[in-house]
């Protein structure tokens, strides 16, 4: 990636004074976690400011400053924090960028929320700080703590939806989330029991020596495998993959749309990041087994998402199922288990964050505007009632489909390519067939927007904030269609940081 790497050099040079100040006043043990700590600080500020006015500028400033700390503090020098509990590297930085981009999109569109904005922003920013720690965690205990910090605010946020259904969805999410946490703890305990450590690098080392020892290997392997299963299940729950996906459509469609966008854009991805770290670093010894599981997960998730999305009338639900299906595609890259596959997967995560967040925000803005649940019928004639929104929505949907108008084309191509290169051409074939299925519901959106005869001709004036950020997001996604290397080359570096 010629340009952005140089760009980051330039930004680092520009922000050098900030770095000097930070280096002088911030304890060295905190440096690596500064992006998250900044968010926590501004979360509190937002809560205070939010008592009287809309805290949006404060929140946005927090996100921007957090991004500044990511850029200015070089991960290789200032990456470690809290005694190596949370460490920034190329891989975590990639996800931090995803989280921060989604954060901007979600915060701006949160102006649609009718209730008290102070707590709302506080909860969002805290959750984002947790998400950043999740992707940085190199220790299972630290990971668990960060995970809870990220999850707990979202349980509240999902309940803040405008309808009573939101509470219903939130409760489901909460109960299943708690269960996932329990399973995760159990898995951590098993790993600790076998290896005597929770630090991923040490775990990997110990497991390696143990598996080489024929007297120990047979007894430890079932325990480790149980841990693998538990991890895939518990982290996969947040990611919305088989078999813990059932809460996704209920919660996504009932919650406040901005929160849904955040769940789909950011927290989903942290599950991927955590799984990658645990499986590809900590539990690499049992790669043979978890590859098999990931293949099963990938296929089931794709099929579930695509088949069930076909029958939906509610666009939010359709998008929820589609984001389940997208995670299925993503797991193709993980199952391939190669550096290229991993890079393709996280590139897909990046593209998906842009596209899906945009789609959710747009549909939610419409829902707020029209005061109803958006179905395909409401999209009819949108090309005339709100041309910009229709164009953006269709662009996002076509991008999700993999049409080469956005980087979504490349991410899907790379995913399938990685499967073929790993001698799993049948997995790529299943993915391609699933893409065909997905035509059934994605194209319905385009048809409703552009081809169906309009039944109403009054304009739908959407709120300006969501529209602006949607335009920006789709602009980036479209640029990535021409030069995917801008992000993908960075994804390769990130993948190398984990696999290398």
């Amino acid at each position, binding site marked *: 990636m010629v340009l952005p790497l140089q760009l980051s050099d330039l930004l680092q040079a520009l922000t050098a004074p900030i770095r000097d100040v930070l280096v002088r006043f911030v304890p060295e043990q905190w440096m690596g976690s500064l992006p998250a700590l900044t968010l926590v600080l501004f979360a509190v500020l937002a809560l205070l400011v939010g008592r009287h006015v809309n805290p949006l500028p404060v929140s946005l400033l927090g996100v921007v400053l957090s991004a500044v700390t990511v850029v200015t503090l070089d991960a290789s020098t200032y990456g470690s924090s809290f005694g190596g509990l949370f460490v920034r590297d190329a891989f975590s930085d990639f996800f931090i960028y995803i989280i921060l981009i989604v954060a901007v999109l979600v915060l701006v569109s949160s102006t649609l929320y009718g209730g008290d904005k102070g707590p709302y922003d506080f909860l969002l920013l805290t959750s984002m700080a947790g998400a950043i720690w999740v992707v940085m965690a190199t220790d299972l205990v630290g990971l668990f703590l960060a995970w809870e910090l990220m999850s707990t605010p979202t349980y509240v946020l999902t309940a803040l939806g405008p309808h009573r259904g939101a509470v219903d969805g939130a*409760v489901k999410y909460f109960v299943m989330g708690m269960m996932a946490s329990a399973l995760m703890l159990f898995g951590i305990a098993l790993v600790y029991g076998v290896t005597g450590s929770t630090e991923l690098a040490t775990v990997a080392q110990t497991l390696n020596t143990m598996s080489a020892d024929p007297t120990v290997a047979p007894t430890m392997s079932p325990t480790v*495998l149980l841990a693998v299963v538990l991890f895939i299940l518990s982290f996969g729950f947040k990611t919305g993959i088989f078999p813990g996906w059932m809460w996704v459509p209920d919660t996504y469609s009932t919650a406040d749309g901005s929160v849904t966008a955040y769940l789909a854009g950011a927290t989903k991805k942290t599950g991927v990041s955590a799984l990658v770290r645990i499986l590809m670093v900590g539990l690499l010894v049992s790669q043979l087994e978890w590859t098999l599981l990931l293949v099963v997960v990938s296929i089931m998730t794709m099929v579930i998402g695509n088949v069930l999305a076909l029958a939906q009338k509610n666009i939010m639900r359709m998008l929820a199922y589609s984001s389940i299906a997208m995670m299925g595609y993503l797991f193709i890259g993980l199952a391939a288990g190669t550096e290229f596959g991993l890079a393709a997967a996280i590139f897909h995560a990046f593209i998906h964050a842009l596209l899906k967040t945009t789609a959710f925000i747009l549909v939610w803005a419409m829902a707020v505007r029209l005061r109803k649940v958006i179905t395909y019928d409401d999209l009819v004639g949108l090309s005339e009632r709100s041309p910009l929104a229709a164009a953006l929505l269709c662009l996002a949907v076509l991008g999700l489909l993999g049409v080469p108008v956005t980087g979504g084309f490349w991410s899907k191509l790379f995913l399938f390519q990685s499967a073929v290169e790993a001698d799993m051409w049948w997995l790529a074939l299943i993915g391609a067939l699933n893409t065909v299925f997905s035509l059934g519901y994605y194209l319905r959106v385009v048809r409703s927007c552009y081809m169906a005869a309009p039944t109403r001709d009054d304009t739908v004036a959407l709120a300006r904030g969501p529209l602006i950020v949607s335009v920006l997001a789709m602009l980036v996604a479209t640029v990535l269609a021409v030069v995917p290397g801008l992000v993908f*080359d960075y994804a390769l570096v990130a993948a190398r940081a984990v696999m290398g």
Partner: protein
Amino acid sequence: MFVPLGLAAWLVFAVPLTGAALTPVFAKVHESLRDAMAVLVGFVTAFIALDMVPEMLASPSSTDIVLLRWNVVAGHVIDFGVLVDPLSVLLATIAGGIGSLIVLFSVGYMTGYDEDGNLVKDPALTRYYGFMQLFIGGMILLVMADNLLMTFIGWEVVGMCSYALIGFWHNRAQPSPVPEYATEGEYNAACGMKAFMVTRVGDIGLLAGILLLYFITGTFNYTEILETAPTWVGGLTSLTLGLLPIAALLVFAGPIGKSAQFPLHTWLPEAMAGPTTVSALIHAAAMVKAGVYLVARLVPIFLEVFTSVASLMVFFQTVAWIGAITAFMSATMALVQDEIKKVLAYSTISQLGYMFMALGATGLVAEGVAAYTAGTFHLLAHAIFKALLFLAAGSVLHAVQSKSMRDMGGLSREMRVTAATFTVGALSLAGVFPFIGFWSKELIFEALWHGEQYPLFAVAFITAILTAFYTFRMVGMTFFGEKSQHVRDLEAHGHHVHEAPPVMTVPLVLLALAATVGGLFELAFFGFFSGVRTGEAVHFDWSHLAPFSLGVTTLFTVVVWGVGIVPAYLIYFRGGYDFSRLKTGALYRFLVNRWYINRVYHRVFVDGYLWLSRALRDRLEAGLLASGEDVARGMARVSRGWRRTMTGVLNTNVLAMMLGIVAFLCIVLFL
């Protein structure tokens, strides 16, 4: 000279492309501004193109200038740049120079007078000038490009413009010249479509060939393919070794379509449906020259590879023989045409065949450089005299308001300039000393004769006789002999046939001048072309090529004049012979029906396709559709049924997750 070479190479196609984009804007301001800007853009382009020539003449060289780098994904980089070498500069000069004259000519040609004598402009002229400039820009982009991909982009731009311009008069209400269509407009539109579709067949081959070449060589760039030839030729596997000739032939499919060679030559005569200026542009400056250019561009590369990959012989054989067959076949068809533009169209196909013959022979004869020079020199010569012939024909058409030569005759008295310049063009086409066509044809004869390619030479020789004959038949029928009934009717109605305005005759005179003295620059041409980059193994030595060499082959040329021109003079200038009996003969019908090739294509590809698609629709598609609907309905049912299990009941969800643990454990433990 005035513009730095690196900048000129970009400007030369950026200017007309920008001009094309701005044409509607200028048209909004004023119609005359639009026309003036089109002419200005044309001449600026021509100036920039000509400006590159002295520099190239002084120091012939090949420079690759990269401007844009498309970094697709790590390691996959595609550079977009221009290649400045004698070949590209020559073609850019032809396209820009002749193109600008044609645009200037258009200002006069695309207007007319109504009954009251008022000036009438074609209402769609914005479209016309826009596409003309785009056409020229696309052609120059094609020739200046330093890689196959960019060439292909220009290639497609040219194809699209040809479609739009051939069908330019798509809403004329006059009766159609052929019975299949209701109006002339419909016929014109169909002709544009035909040009597009037929060339498209070749384009698909070209695209496949380009991608195959990329697969084999790892680059699109001409210079890189040539320079890294030892490396990638060394790395050829048995698969790629087998693919290489196929790739070469597929690439040649593009030129076959674009340059109207057999078997894709059928579109060019119909392309006459467009305005004559468009025909001139297609025949002389752009479009059909694109194919010759691409082959000329690739021949040095393939020659280099040929030294180690003998199977590439098939490429050179194919190029030479396709050229030979086309040259002969279309010359015979030209013998019987009644429309002046049709004669010119067939002669273009035939002359292009000569060029391919020579370029193909480059790989077959010992003196490859002689054949290569002959092919490219003929390209230049043909561009000049064919533009001249077309524009002069346009002038005639403008005057007599008819396409058929039977409606002309004896025009030389009223249209002196047109008749004189047309005759110069005809002499050049027939290969008469000292016009430019003589020198280029002589070069081809020489290369084939001394290269001991006697079968090819025989075809070239016979074709030359036919060419001389039909050329002077055309001159005789149009400008000499008796005045036709049509002309006399016109005069009886007070419409005296008159010479064209200066805006039309100036280009004619300029081109006639070039056709007369152009051959004298043969030596300069050889020196100019020494800058074309050739490989390590096959090095073209231009210095020992003898210019103005007369020898055995000159005798043949003289025979051509005798056997070709003299009978035409006797029959069509003097008159008095009656050959109408021949019109019922089988040979005449065979030729007039274009060897029945068109009809066979229509039967096989149009009727056959329709038959097949109808059969498929009735037999196969109905069933497939039904089953497809079943699948869709089935999926919908599955989806709906499954959805019913999505009760949202928390207990079920938790249970499913728990079952998941069990299932996963079973998988990892027992599989």
